[in-house]
């Protein structure tokens, strides 16, 4: 399995806990303490109740594939890695994140498949990708 290209995110102070968590293989996202909404993309104010009592919490990282596409054509550094999988993963906690699925049998991949997180080094932090849960030994 060739490693996908890495793009170093420009980490800004307002999303530092997310990237700090990723650096240590943990998925940390904001959650409203007043109404329990997970706030994605990360923001300081809850979009549902407008509370600013939003805290960073670690979540399981487990999820399922909401949709995906196998990219057969790409530019730059990605061109050498086609075909690769881009997916929307719905976290068990609700938010939907754009990501890659790695280590998957492309012909067997299906919407609804359970996935578990993998973290790939990107500069001082890591980016969040996923792999099929069975492959990771998670079931």
């Amino acid at each position, binding site marked *: 399995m060739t490693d*996908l*290209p*890495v*793009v*170093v*995110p*420009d980490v*800004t102070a307002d999303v530092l806990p997310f990237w700090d968590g990723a650096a240590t293989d943990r998925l940390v996202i904001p959650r409203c303490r007043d109404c329990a909404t997970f706030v*994605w*993309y990360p923001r300081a104010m809850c979009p549902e109740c407008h509370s600013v009592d939003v805290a960073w919490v670690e979540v399981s990282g487990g999820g399922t594939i*909401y*949709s*995906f*596409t*196998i*990219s*057969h*054509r*790409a*530019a*730059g*550094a*990605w061109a050498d*890695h086609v*075909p*690769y999988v*881009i*997916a*929307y993963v719905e976290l068990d906690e609700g938010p*939907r*994140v*754009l*990501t*890659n699925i790695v280590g998957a049998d492309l012909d067997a991949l299906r*919407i609804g498949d359970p996935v578990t997180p993998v973290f790939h080094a*990107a500069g001082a932090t890591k*980016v969040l*990708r996923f792999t099929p849960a069975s492959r990771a030994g998670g079931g």
Partner: protein
Amino acid sequence: MEQPFERRVIVSGIGESQIGRRLHRTPLDLTLEASLAAISDAGLTVADIDGLATYPGSLGMGSEAATGPGTPAVQDALRLNLSWHTATSEGPAQVAAVVSACLAVAAGLARHVLIYRTVTESSGQGDGGRKGLGGDGSAQVEGWLQYLVPFGAHSAANWVAQYAQRHFHEFGTTREQLAQVALTGRRNAALNPSAVYRTPLTIDDYITSRMISTPLCLYDCDVPVDGSLAFVVSHVDVAPDLPKPAVRINAVGTAQRGRPSWDQWSDLVTMAGRDAAAHLWTRTDLRPSDVDVAQLYDGFSFLTLMWLEALGFCGRGESGPFLEGGHRIALDGQLPLNTSGGQLSAGRLHGYLQLHEAVVQLRGDAGARQVAGAEVAVAASGGGPLAGVLLLTK
């Protein structure tokens, strides 16, 4: 009840430049060719133009190959004396400039607004293939791109593909059904002298073509071209003076009620067109069954399916069966679709091809591809979180 503002506005003139692959003419040159044609078509002179609008404007979305010239360049080149002008990339998709121009005319800020959309993406992409956002895949990224670029999702094809995949999953939509958008477009393009791809396309060509981003293949993606389309919108009072039949703007649809994001949209089997279309039908007594010809955005074929459902030509999830076999959307079908060939075959004139063809059809000027008795046309632009739609009448 007061009439919607758009009833006070007509399309008085249309014009097109040379349109083709790698013309190597400047964006301004193409824009001026289309603009002068549109002004002349309306029976006006340059001195009559007192408003100017474009999408997205020179700072809107990157290189001039994608944006065309900004309004200052066009104003200066034509020495226009303007009462009003605008350009913005944020609004109800590509036709935002048209809606803004209609507002300006209805409000009395301008009497004759010149609108243009210019692309030179065929020359602009050179021989290196199509580029998307952050296409070199190496730079640092910030803002919302930090959630897309690290995953190689540079291209809109990657974003649309995941909607299509979800639609296939939930409703059983097939590639053969999706293909009908491309095949119908190509058949219509054969009858359009301005279209760039006019050679026949078969279902076998489609099914065996190379994948771009599953389930979208080469023929699901529109074709970059160089060209400019221009329009003049005027106050309805001038309709009797026009050399050509006025085309009336019956209703606009501009609503956007979901999260303005490709990946955070609620269900991935609808798009913002859902809201814009619902809004459109609240502004008119006309119904989907009154539409004689539909020009629905096809930057990717799947976006057309979303518009078919959004506008109520079929139910949610039913666009696949609606397209089956292609007979309903043929020139002699119940809903002739993308009669110019659409962006898939005529060229990526980015939301304005649809408006141009709607006007041509309502004027009865479409020649071999004319839909007999066309009196109501819909022109829809945009995909994902962007949508704007116009209902036009004779």
